């Protein structure tokens, strides 16, 4: 008798704990459900619908016509598509390396103590937070052939060129400007990530190295850099993903630089508005990105 009572009670506790857990699970699902429905119906479903559309000749009015893989064939045999791929790679590589290096350099400076440091730190975030649309015109003015400062310095003062011209007027030069513009806009991001890592490095390693007579380069190479390796690796992959898909930063500055997003935009929303081909293009761009990420994760991060 004396044994029975606690047994019953503990059974009841288990049952109660079990229903509590089910209740908890149900509550968790209730809370996440709106997010799941929204993301499912407005992100996942459209992507599947995009695959479906890429198999059709999409009409703006009336029914779509099934054409199988014709859109893909059209895209892949078009030399301007391959040119866009090349431009995208140049853009992504240039911007990623540029932002990471400049971010690293700026972080190494900002980690030191100097007067007005917090003001300076706030000021250099401005490019990152200001809306793209509000800064593109200032950059365009900078390269304006008539009034811009760039021509004033290179033509009037240094006599580097034979006549005034717009540096963003031709595709070859414009891609360089687009890269510099993107570096300017996003270096604060990599700087912030690197700075927060730098600040958490323990000082004792440096002190020991100093006693051993290490040079500042050696200190950077053997103490700082290994600590930063992971954060730099993640900056690179984030920047690759974002810059590969960049649209606004390029298109609003100049429509001369046809990276894939801009190329697709022109195909799908100007002229004949070939949205079927646009859908195929968007999907190809996505697959290229996934391919690159898998390669990067395996070969560079060696996961």
């Amino acid at each position, binding site marked *: 008798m004396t044994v029975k009572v606690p047994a019953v009670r503990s059974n009841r506790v288990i049952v109660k704990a079990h229903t509590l857990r089910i209740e908890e*699970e149900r*509550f*968790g*699902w*209730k*809370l*996440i459900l*709106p*997010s*799941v429905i*929204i*993301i499912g119906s*407005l*992100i996942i479903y*459209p*992507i599947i*619908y*995009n695959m479906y*559309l890429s198999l059709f000749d*999409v009409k*703006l009015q009336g029914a779509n016509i099934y054409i199988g893989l014709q859109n893909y064939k059209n895209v892949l045999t078009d030399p301007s598509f391959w040119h866009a791929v090349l431009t995208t790679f140049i853009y992504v590589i240039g911007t990623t390396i540029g932002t990471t290096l400049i971010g690293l350099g700026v972080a190494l400076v900002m980690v030191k103590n100097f007067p007005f440091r917090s003001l300076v730190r*706030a*000021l*250099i*975030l401005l490019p990152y*937070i*200001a*809306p*793209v*649309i*509000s*800064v593109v*015109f*200032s950059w365009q*003015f900078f390269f304006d052939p*008539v*009034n811009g400062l760039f021509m*004033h310095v290179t033509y009037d003062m240094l006599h580097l060129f034979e006549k005034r011209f717009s540096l963003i007027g031709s595709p070859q030069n414009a891609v360089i400007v687009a890269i510099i513009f993107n570096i300017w806009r996003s270096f604060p*991001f990599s700087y912030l*990530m690197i700075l*927060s890592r730098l600040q958490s490095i323990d000082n004792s390693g440096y002190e020991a190295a100093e006693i051993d007579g290490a040079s500042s380069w050696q200190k950077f190479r053997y103490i700082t850099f290994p600590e930063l390796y992971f954060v730099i690796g993640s900056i690179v992959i*984030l920047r690759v*993903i*974002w810059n590969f*898909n960049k*649209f*606004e930063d390029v*298109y*609003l500055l100049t429509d001369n630089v046809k990276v894939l*997003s801009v190329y*697709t*935009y022109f195909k*799908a929303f100007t002229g004949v508005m070939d*949205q079927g081909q646009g859908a195929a293009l*968007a*999907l190809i*761009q*996505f697959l290229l*990105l*996934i391919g690159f990420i898998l390669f990067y994760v395996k070969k560079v991060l060696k996961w």
Partner: protein
Amino acid sequence: MVVKKKNIIRKTGFFLLILLIVTFAVFPFLQMLSLSLKYQFDWGNPSLIPKKINLEAYKELLNIGTKLRAVPDSIKRLLENKALTRAQRRSITKKYQETGDVFPFLRYFGNSFFLSFTASFISLIVATLGAYSFSRINYRGRGIIQRGVLFVYMFGGILLLIPLYQVAIKSGLARTGSGSFISLLIIYMVQTLPVSLYMLGNYFRSIPFSIEEAALIDGCTRFEIIYRVIIPLSLPALSTVFIYAFMIAWNEYLFASVFLRSYKNLYTLPIGLKALFVSKNAIWDRIMAASILTATPVVILFMIVQKNLVSGLTSGGVKE
């Protein structure tokens, strides 16, 4: 002595470096401000300080004192005629106000503000519940959802643009201005949702569970805990996420340019500015003044939450 000299060189070099970095970051903004205040004859002058201050651009954009400027004198005389009813008078002046010569900056500003505010507010509510769920409650499928949110980061806007546009066309939403506007509102909410979920999830995990336990023992239900304990505790994080989402929507160009293309009254600031720049060649003072006014709210919001935003940004990267 030698050491001292070397030190001085080092120090000046260091300050020059800081000066260089700050100039690189800030110069485009200074140029913007300077140009918005310059008269046309002054545009080619490389100095950043205007020879004469010109406030016309700001006045025009903000609609100060320009109400009747475009109205010819003959019409003005007609307006003074006492025989006219008020409604007639208003319809006449209205004709002259919307000549298209004036850039309806305030209306675009209003459109942008309404879209960004509503979208990020709804997204914040949905994300608070969702983030609480997957950061605090154990259930099957939680891991998939968490990873799924990260996966969504990889999708560029262009991948969603065509299918969503097709859906809007086929469902008839894109046929009316209000339908397009609502579509855009929903899209902005969706676009800011993954970021909000991710940032809030990270934050909720940093709140000690013991606080919730105490509330549970006091007899609070789970839902009460969310709005009595979690929300008050995470107000700084919530406002940061809200402002971040607001900034995403405020900056958005791609979807707005497609959905609002044929509804000029509903333009947001980014497409309005771009259209202004394309339609009229080189009216630099107005373009720059509009740029400054577009950037100002975002910069102010940023300054309010600077500290939180910076730590939020660095806690694992945020979608752009």
